[in-house]
């Protein structure tokens, strides 16, 4: 966190000054470790084993916050008796289909819900479309009624399943899998549990490298299970905080730049799953479930009103058929492979540098070289704009400038200081930024670009009679502009996002005002309220010293300016704060309403004693003590009966590339991971496949404080480049000796995709780990370098192949296997031959790919 988020890290240092214990778990000793009270090195890719060990420690010692767990989580909920665990099936859950590599999740359901389970085909489509992303603002659909055993004794209740599932994740197993000595591990468990409960809360903070694994979503799930067991959710000082990789990455999923989502986590329509408007809405709201998501029709209609204005009517299903449909996996990696195969003609790149920043850089560059046209909008001429003349593939002869037909349009972009708008950060808080100065020359804002692009396309189709152009012709595209370049007014866009009453143009005060009858328009339902009372609430900047400690008048947080989600959980089932110290919201019995320091995340006047009538659904179906109001059953999910492709409980699988046989299960790696078995995406062999010793070392990548992601914003600046002026690789003194590497000398790192060179830093900050009876060396590389800028070097992301998490299609780019050798890499054609020789030695060719299911598992 100190490396990648130094400004946010000031609050960790502040907490430390006040006596907080800071624990840092990381494969390499970083600037964070330097100021932590305890540094715990572990093997990259082993985090679920580590956190599973913490869960086991909590359950074996009964250190969970029992009252919280029973009342607010699904610990007591009973699961179908057909459910079989990974402990019974060698690392697979019940329902695995080896043909498609997905599960039929019927046996994972709550008892009595079996008929509501998605089918195997649904699950397959969900993986293709990264459907897990839809769950950012709410849980997957389950019916309201569940069977519960609040004594937690029923062998089929979630609590008992959880306990059995993690019973083998002992300190000894943690050492065997992660390389963490038991005494170090115990110190972590003790500190975490001691600081949680009625009187105290702990926060779990992770950076997005945690997600970049073939089991990335399950990493986060494991952390969430611990936080629920310890009562750290919905309470001040608790939570699971994702530190995002750039400004407003939260914003870019809320109002998405993703292929599979529409604003507010509404799914992008799929051609078979959501054929009609009704099917789409029903798929979102799932009649019969509890909670606010039941009102999805109002959110959906209001969005279509924002898109199509007067052309969205009840008669034409609010313009639903103007929306494009997904037909499968259109994720960024599938697109790149399609480009290589010549299936994609054009590509827009905005603020992204995949030639350096994405996994398998060579595939990225070769793909772009097959396009007809490419539009790059960036601050500088980044590697993704110049690959046709100076990429590593020019040197190897794989791209020939004279023959590369891609027409590249480079459009210079305005920087964040040169445009107005909002950032949404990890706390879901929108903060408005003023424009400090005009962008120079031809540089323009994204808003300008898209507004005028849309305007020009609409001019082209204005007289078209083609049905396919109707949506574009009918889109509501009227924004006030000003200045010499006709810059659109960003606050007008924010007003549209907030939503308004169509008859009166009155800005809405929040999403509860949204209507399904077409009388309201709203560009993103979860952002409704950001322009309440016609005031830009995101622009509020009242200093913390002039308001309460929750600081509700600084910016605006979705939903409804609520700073902590599910904060009903900060009070006990009777509505009384769990402790004076941790009081946040509570039930005021005299006034008959919820009150407190924050906006209560609950119906204002629903008493804690409220019990729904039988069969009640939607918001009315929630009990007065069901705090998790966006979940189908109102509970925090220790166990996920739906919504995850790879299982209801996080399970330790080895990374797709690993030098180790999975010590816990016969199943080696995630059996549902998304793979692309192609000759140009060879993955290094992992046991039980042969020849894994050709790539004996584990490597991981991350950032340096001095640079920013793929370097487009830092390698061009002298004051940053001079601070880290060269690509380097960090190795331990032991590995340096083993491979003959010298400090400050050159070395090259080899995988099945590439060989890259770097200067060597020999440092005790990297150290070998002992596990499973052998010593594992880990190598660390920064991923900031590429061929352009004041400082240049080979790109670490060239080393990775493409394997994705099945839930959200994020790439496994934080762990792989490699070899390292002293000296510089070969150049020209010799480089290709060099990598090909490694492939040959590793037995990798197009005739065989590692199966998803490991032989022996599932017997």
């Amino acid at each position: 966190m100190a490396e990648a988020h130094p400004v946010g890290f000031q609050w960790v240092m502040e907490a430390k000054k006040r006596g907080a214990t800071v624990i840092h778990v990381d494969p390499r000793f970083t600037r964070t470790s330097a100021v932590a009270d305890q540094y715990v090195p572990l093997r990259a890719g082993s985090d679920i084993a580590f956190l599973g060990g913490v869960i086991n420690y909590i359950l074996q010692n009964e250190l969970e916050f029992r009252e919280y767990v029973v009342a607010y989580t699904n610990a007591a909920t009973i699961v179908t008796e057909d459910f079989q665990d990974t402990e019974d099936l060698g690392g697979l859950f019940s329902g695995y289909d080896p043909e498609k590599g997905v599960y039929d999740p019927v046996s994972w359901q709550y008892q009595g819900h079996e008929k509501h389970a998605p089918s195997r085909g649904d699950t397959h489509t969900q993986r293709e479309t990264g459907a897990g992303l839809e769950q950012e603002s709410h849980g997957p659909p389950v019916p309201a009624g569940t069977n519960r055993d609040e004594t937690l004794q029923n062998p089929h209740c979630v609590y008992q399943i959880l306990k059995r599932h993690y019973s083998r994740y002992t300190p000894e197993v943690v050492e065997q899998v992660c390389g963490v000595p038991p005494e170090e591990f115990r110190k972590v468990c003790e500190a975490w549990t001691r600081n949680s409960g009625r009187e105290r809360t702990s926060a779990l903070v992770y950076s997005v490298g945690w997600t970049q694994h073939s089991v990335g979503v399950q990493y986060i799930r494991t952390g969430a299970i611990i936080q629920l067991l310890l009562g750290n959710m919905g309470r001040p000082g608790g939570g699971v905080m994702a530190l995002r990789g750039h400004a407003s990455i939260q914003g870019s999923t809320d109002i998405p730049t993703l292929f599979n989502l529409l604003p507010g986590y509404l799914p992008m329509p799929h051609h078979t799953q959501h054929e009609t408007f009704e099917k789409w809405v029903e798929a979102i709201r799932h009649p019969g479930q509890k909670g606010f998501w039941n009102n999805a029709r109002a959110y959906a209609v209001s969005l279509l009103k924002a898109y199509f204005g007067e052309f969205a009517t009840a008669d034409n299903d609010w313009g639903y058929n103007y929306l494009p449909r997904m037909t499968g996996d259109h994720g960024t990696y599938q697109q790149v492979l399609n480009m290589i195969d010549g299936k994609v003609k054009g590509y827009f790149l905005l603020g992204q540098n995949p030639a350096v920043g994405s996994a398998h850089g060579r595939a990225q560059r070769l793909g772009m070289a097959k396009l007809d046209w490419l539009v790059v909008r960036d601050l500088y001429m980044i590697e993704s704009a110049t690959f046709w003349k100076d990429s590593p593939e020019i040197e190897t002869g794989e791209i020939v400038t004279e023959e590369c037909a891609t027409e590249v349009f480079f459009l210079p972009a305005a920087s964040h200081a040169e445009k107005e708008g909002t950032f949404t950060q990890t706390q879901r808080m929108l903060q408005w930024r003023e424009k400090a100065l005009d962008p120079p020359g031809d540089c323009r804002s994204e808003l300008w670009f898209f507004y005028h692009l849309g305007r020009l396309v609409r001019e082209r189709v204005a007289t078209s009679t083609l049905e396919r152009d109707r949506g574009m012709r009918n889109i509501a595209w009227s924004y006030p502009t000003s200045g010499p370049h006709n810059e659109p007014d960003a606050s007008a866009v924010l007003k549209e996002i907030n939503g308004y009453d169509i008859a009166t143009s009155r800005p809405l005060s929040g999403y509860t005002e949204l209507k399904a009858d077409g009388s309201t328009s709203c560009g993103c339902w979860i952002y409704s309220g950001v322009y309440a009372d016609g005031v830009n609430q995101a622009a509020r900047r009242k200093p913390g010293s002039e308001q309460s400690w929750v600081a509700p008048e600084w910016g605006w947080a979705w939903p409804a300016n609520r700073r902590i989600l599910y904060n009903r959980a900060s009070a006990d089932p009777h509505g009384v704060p769990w402790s004076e110290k941790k009081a946040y919201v509570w039930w005021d019995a005299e006034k008959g309403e919820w009150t407190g320091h924050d906006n209560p995340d609950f119906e204002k006047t629903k008493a804690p004693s409220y019990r729904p009538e039988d069969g009640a659904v939607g918001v009315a179906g929630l009990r007065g003590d069901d705090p998790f109001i966006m979940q189908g059953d109102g509970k925090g999910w220790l166990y996920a009966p739906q919504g995850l492709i790879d299982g209801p409980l996080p399970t330790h699988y080895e990374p797709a590339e690993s030098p180790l046989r999975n010590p816990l299960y016969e199943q080696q790696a995630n059996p549902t991971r998304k793979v692309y078995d192609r000759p140009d995406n060879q993955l290094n062999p992992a046991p039980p496949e042969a020849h894994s010793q050709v790539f004996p070392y584990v490597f991981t990548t991350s950032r340096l404080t001095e640079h920013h992601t793929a370097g487009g914003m830092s390698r061009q600046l002298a004051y940053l480049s001079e601070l880290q002026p060269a690509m380097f690789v960090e190795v331990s003194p032991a590995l340096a000796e083993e491979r003959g590497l010298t400090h400050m000398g050159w070395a090259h790192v080899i995988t099945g995709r590439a060989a890259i060179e770097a200067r060597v830093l020999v440092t005790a900050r990297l150290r070998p780990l002992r596990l499973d009876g052998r010593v594992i060396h880990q190598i660390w590389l920064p991923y900031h370098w590429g061929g352009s800028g004041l400082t240049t070097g080979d790109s670490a992301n060239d080393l990775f192949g493409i394997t994705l998490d099945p839930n959200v299609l994020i790439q496994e780019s934080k762990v792989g296997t490699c070899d390292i050798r002293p000296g510089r890499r070969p150049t020209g054609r010799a480089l290709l031959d060099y990598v090909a020789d490694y492939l040959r030695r590793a037995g990798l060719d197009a005739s065989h790919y590692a199966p998803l299911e490991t032989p022996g598992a599932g017997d």
Partner: protein
Amino acid sequence: MPGPNSLYGPVDPAPDAGYTDAPPRMGFFTDTSVCIGCKACEVACKEWNAVPDDGFDLLGMSYDNTGGLTANSWRHVAFIEQATPPSEAAMDVLREAERSVSTQFLGMPSSTLPGETGRADRDLRWLMMSNVCKHCTHAGCLDVCPTGSLFRTEFGTVVVQEDICNGCGYCVSACPYGVIDRREDDGRAWKCTLCYDRIGEGMTPACAQACPTESIQYGELDELRDRAAKRVEVLHQRGVSEARLYGHDPADGVGGDGAFFLLLDEPEVYGLPPDPVVPTRDLPSMWKHAGVAALTMAAAVAAAFLGRRP
């Protein structure tokens, strides 16, 4: 009118330099125990003061690619990797790797640094420290400057006026810390001004403003000294017995620094002199001795002449 301590000993430098109604003396307290090595201070300093880049050289000195305070780097974050004897468990792993691992510290001239032993609870310590001009009470650079380019400000800080500097370089050898430096291309001397143009407007110096963890604190020197003493006390109570202040003492060889530090090891570990002394300290006694010598010489000459007369 210079006082008896003008060249050595405790003194408030601004009044001593002739300012009447001088504002309180301002300075930096750099608390290295909370430094996270982000180098925001280096960048902010260069941005505000338009200091040129200092070259793109990988130095291999841990994460320090600045190397030291120079004419083109007025803040410098030092990174010190200290390998202390590994724990028994870690040693087992290392032995198993069948390698005799040298715990040699990398990037510093010697493997036997002061403070190399110690803490048993970890086998690696990574110290970070943002170094800067000390703005000495008795500033050697100022004392030797022949042009008046270096001057004492009303805040008690020491600033170079680049339009007056003639590039003689006397100041470079007069600095006991090796801070002030000449730029190769123009020959003139440059160093931290404690953002004279900012603090005169009531603003905080750029480095302190940018520091995310309040490792660099700016303020009235007296107040900073109190704060620093309390911080050391707190750290000692928490078992950080190695915490100590550096440059805070008005009785030291430079009369105390306007920019002082909380360190977690001996000053030498950070590349700081353990006992800096302003080279002009001995000027009065040197002049006295020279005077006595001259008088003696004169007397001897006179005596010789007188003595020749029978």
